[in-house]
């Protein structure tokens, strides 16, 4: 359920948007940058719920030290979205609580 994006491209010029899937639905995101920045620009406000209390979380540091941006990316749970380049066709899911084992 994307909302108004928190971030937008600064350059109105051609920022190639690509198609990915988020929580089973198609989503157009900026093609440059990490999965985390792509989703922030596409209006995804919340990336996961914690396995401790279920509290909602989203990216905080964007440099790989906070581990808040964890998503399931192409079947791999708890991936740090800010450290992975976004690619067309990626299947991304929010990380709800503790991951599945396999």
């Amino acid at each position, binding site marked *: 359920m994307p909302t108004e994006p928190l971030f937008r*491209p*600064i*350059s109105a010029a051609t920022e190639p948007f690509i198609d990915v899937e988020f929580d089973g639905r198609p989503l157009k995101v900026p093609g*440059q940058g990490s999965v985390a920045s792509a989703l922030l620009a596409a209006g995804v*406000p919340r990336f996961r719920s914690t396995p401790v209390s279920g509290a*909602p979380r989203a990216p905080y*540091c*964007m440099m790989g030290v906070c581990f808040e941006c964890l998503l399931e990316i192409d079947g791999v749970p708890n991936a740090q979205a800010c450290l992975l380049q976004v690619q067309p066709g990626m299947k991304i899911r929010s990380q709800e609580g503790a991951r599945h084992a396999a």
Partner: protein
Amino acid sequence: MQLESVDVAVVGAGPAGLAAAATAAELGLSVALLDEQAHPGGQIYRDVTRAGVDRLQVLGDDYAAGRALVERFTQSTARHVGGASVWNITRERVIHYLKDGRSQSITAGQVILCTGAMERPFPIPGWTLPGVMTAGAAQILLKSAGLAPAQPVVLAGCGPLLYLLAWQYLRAGVRIGAIVDTTQRGDYLRALRHVGGAVAGWREVRKGLGLIRRIRGAGIPFYRGATELAVEGSERAEALRFRMGATSHRVQTDLVLLHQGVVPNNQITASLRLAHRWDERQLCWVPQTDAWGRLALDGFLIAGDGRGISGGTAAALQGELAALAAAHSAARLPEPERDRAAEPLRSALRRQLHIRPFLDTLYRPKLQHRVPADEVIACRCEEVSAGELRRSVALGCTGPSQTKAFSRCGMGPCQGRLCGLTVTEVIAQARGVSPAEVGHYRIRPPIKPITLDELAAL
């Protein structure tokens, strides 16, 4: 397991690492530069080689200057190993890293650690809500993806990076809802005691004042001397609340960018069990080094913000000095030549370091935003509150290790990066002793995530 060997392995491709790697390579040593990102630049010069004219305009000259350094590195014979997640460095200088889905390793005659800094945690009510990020995160979005806030954003905290970000946003046409500055009048007065440093670093001071002038000139609400910051919202950030004197204020916003300085990222030096001392002026742990950046363990050096916050220019100078020392240790650079080359670097470095006491005093993060109230989350990963930490101390825990055992703080995936300083300072305050006496977390590998399968394949 491949065991490649180099004269010098540099970890981190920011200004310190780029300068160290280029210098060492230019002196004829074999060099590998490992970095997590695909492209060199670290955080301060993140993606600088990929920035178009528009982005460089917004980000400013200091950022653009990084291109020359990256260029120098790329021209050198040093090898860039990007996308490398270093998960362990042994005391015998074997570096284990994950790249392309498997663990690889490299052994080095010397290791120069240039892992830099990270944002100081800012534990206030609501800081874990979606929509709360750091100023550094915002800069990364700008540099690596050309993104800026779409709605009016609130910047809160203190420090030159906050003003720099505001200035960059103005140039990009971003609407800023408010700047909530925690710097107090008293901070200016205390900082002026270091005015000698300010005079020496006049260029920096003038730049800072210029930023502030421009921000004010743009008519952005600028609150100074703010206290008791708190983010309001249930599922996401909705507003920033704060006090100005006796008056409570509330600025509505979906996005709060927090900043109260950066601190060294000590995970690797701590995992090597190297001694760190508590720096009371910078309020963080710094590893013990000599003037060249040599650590207490043979063959290990450190350069850049990782050895104490001093900025990008100083980092590059320290990187060069470390490389000179490494070359000398490797018997590839005689002492007189090493010292001759070092002299101008040291002078330049002194000039850079001169302004630190002034800046550190002026932008000292406030105690209430470092040692929070009971209900505030100290450990984000395990959702441990400051109150829980205090209860552990009341039970007899005297330091981070036992507190971790009892409360689970520091047991999450970030391995104490975001809670370490808070935990040390909360315990110190609860016990009435200095942070130096409390100590810091024991850090062990893996420093970055590695799966059981990857570990099993070693």
